[in-house]
């Protein structure tokens, strides 16, 4: 009996101690320190305890379920040596402390030429933080935050601070403060990232000459906010359902000489929101089904809008706070395609409307003075409001497109309209009585 009790006691110790966890906790930093420069460390399918600091060039590769768990007091992984490669890890539990001098992250990089890929990040203030780190590659990472609405208590998915020439590609960021935040960071490239449920999907401050292509921003408070940044290239990005009273697809604030080409702005509160920005070129974009297609504030000058498709927006474009100077709605004789917003003829079939179009709106003053106006933008009443105010001459010219593009018309749409028209006519002429019969009298005619 005594032996049996002793056996059970010893056996139960195995359950309590969890030896593999503690061994790993003691060892990961020691293992890293013991490795040679340029070595490759393959981690097993288990949880290693951080925090760790990497001070020599090396490669750390995890397996499917390798987790590096921080102790919640600082950065989980600090990379202080160049040419470090981290891949296939889950990194979690960084410090969320906002009173410290340093802003912590799951992975903080202080050096150049590193590769961070296939990393999952959870429960940390910032996800990946590049601090004065250049020529790094950050790709295929998945960063999840605390969800939309939590602004102050959490950091950004990828935070780029005084860091140049980095490549950020194929990352997925969900529910952090800003998806990717660039602060004094130049010449970076962001390709194919997918950012949802953040405050601003992409946030540029004082960062010039950056390129971002093929990124998708959905359901953020703001898709991309470009502030005080110049000479950026934005191509083939999608800004979709960024809804809310303050929301926008793309904000250009004090941003100059940017090139915005071939992007899609779909179902946003405002497709493009331009304030105090100059000399931006906006071409070939699809600005569709937004509540306001383009909101242009008076302090914005010298923008060029050409070859864009701006259709099915409640208000195609609005200029607020007066008129900016030299904003041009066409270039080299090519304007924009306004879809069915404006009736247009093209008798000489050159793809350009026969007469210029001018958009008047009375709403600009209301939008400017009263923020609650935004709540009415989906209401059909807006159309009537505009029509009535047009007759009262309360409206102002919002823009003039001298060379509007005409749509290549699909034949089927006109056939559908014709069919609907005929059906309505038939009901009105022959079927008034029938309408009553359909809804009452059990379908009987007498």
């Amino acid at each position, binding site marked *: 009996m005594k032996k049996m009790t002793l056996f059970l006691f010893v056996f139960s110790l195995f359950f309590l101690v969890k030896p593999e966890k503690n061994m790993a906790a003691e060892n990961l930093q020691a293992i890293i320190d013991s490795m040679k420069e340029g070595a490759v460390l393959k981690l097993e399918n288990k949880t290693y305890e951080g925090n760790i600091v990497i001070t020599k060039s090396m490669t750390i590769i995890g397996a499917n379920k390798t987790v590096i768990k921080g102790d919640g007091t600082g950065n989980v992984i600090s990379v202080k040596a160049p040419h470090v490669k981290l891949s296939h890890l889950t990194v979690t539990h960084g410090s969320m402390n906002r009173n410290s001098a340093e802003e912590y992250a799951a992975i903080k990089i202080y050096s150049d030429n590193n590769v961070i890929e296939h990393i999952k990040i959870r429960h940390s203030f910032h996800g990946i933080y590049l601090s004065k780190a250049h020529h790094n590659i950050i790709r295929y990472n998945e960063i999840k935050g605390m969800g*939309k*609405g939590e*602004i102050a208590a959490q950091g950004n998915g990828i935070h780029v601070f005084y860091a140049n020439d980095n490549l950020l590609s194929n990352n997925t960021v969900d529910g952090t403060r800003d998806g990717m935040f660039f602060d004094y960071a130049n010449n970076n490239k962001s390709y194919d990232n997918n950012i*949802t*449920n953040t*405050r601003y999907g992409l946030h540029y401050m004082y960062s010039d000459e950056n390129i971002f292509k093929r990124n*998708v921003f*959905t*359901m*953020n*408070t703001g898709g991309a906010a470009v502030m005080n940044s110049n000479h950026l290239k934005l191509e083939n990005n999608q800004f*979709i*359902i960024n*809804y*809310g*009273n*303050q*929301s926008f697809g793309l904000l250009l604030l004090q941003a100059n000489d940017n090139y915005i080409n071939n992007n899609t702005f*779909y*179902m946003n509160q405002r497709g493009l929101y331009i304030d105090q920005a100059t000399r931006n070129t906006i071409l070939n974009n699809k600005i569709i089904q937004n509540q306001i297609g383009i909101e242009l504030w008076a302090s914005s000058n010298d923008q060029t809008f050409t070859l864009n498709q701006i259709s099915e927006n409640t208000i195609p474009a609005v200029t607020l706070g007066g008129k900016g100077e030299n904003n041009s709605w066409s270039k080299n004789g090519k304007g924009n395609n306004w879809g069915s917003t404006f009736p247009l003829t093209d008798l000489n079939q050159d793809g350009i409307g026969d007469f210029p179009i001018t958009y008047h709106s009375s709403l600009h003053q*209301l939008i400017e*003075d*009263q*923020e*609650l*106006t935004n*709540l*009415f933008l*989906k*209401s*059909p*009443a*807006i159309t*009537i*409001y505009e029509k009535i105010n047009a007759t009262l001459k309360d409206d102002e010219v919002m823009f003039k497109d001298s060379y509007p593009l005409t749509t290549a018309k699909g034949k089927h749409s006109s056939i559908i309209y014709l069919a609907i028209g005929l059906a309505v006519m038939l009901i009105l002429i022959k079927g008034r009585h029938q*309408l*009553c*019969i*359909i*809804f*009452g*009298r*059990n*379908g009987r005619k007498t």
Partner: protein
Amino acid sequence: MHYIWKEWKENIRGKGLWLSLSIIVILTISILFRSTALSFDKGFYILLINLFDTLIYFIPILCLFIGAFSIFQEKEQKTLIMLLTKKDNYPSFLVKKSLGLYTVVLVPLIGWFFLYLLLLKFTFQLDIKSYLIFVAAIVLMALIFLQMGAAIGSFSRSRMQIIGYTIFVWFYFFFLHDFILLSFLPDVTYENVKLFSSVYFLNPLQSVRMYLETGMGVYSFGHMSRLLQAFMWTKPVFFLLGNLIFWLAVSFGTAIVFNRKEGYE
């Protein structure tokens, strides 16, 4: 139960319910086909918003017609008089009739949206919570307008009156209500914004939309100004419930006070 059975039999013999349901089915399917190009993970939300924006044109007017003509039919066929002379008074008749109407219209509607979910499963990544909110939004909207329809049916004397009232109610909520508020908008201040928001959310279309968009997490209310915070003085779901209770009460009240037992052609 008798009323539900009676309502069901009357409606499946008639064309109104079938016409309404087939319109909804055709619309939902055509929007699904149009949305197949959307992305797998977020396309679901876009589809639901577009679907709602389309259905909002049809469900109110169809429900108004179904509700109004269902009551009026009782007058035309003299069944109302028969029922009232037996054991029912008008309020109890109206309650039972309304329950019958809800069951007959909403059960097939909910049934269809359940089937529709199966179709969506092949195309998009589903978010069941959002979908339930969407269905709840549609059902509540249908409920409010069915009851308004029942009120119209109660106080109308002829079919032409029904058509006239129905189109007016639809036009009012679709255009006039917001239009009137738009003209008051410049005078809205922090002091009177609560009153303004109460009137704004009296429009079922607005309160249902706000409930749907915030419930699905599409509409973000971050960084609200003081004015907007005062405007949203309670949660969208309470605005919607308040709206529901208000319009059900008003519709019942109007129907009971102004009901006319006789109808003529």
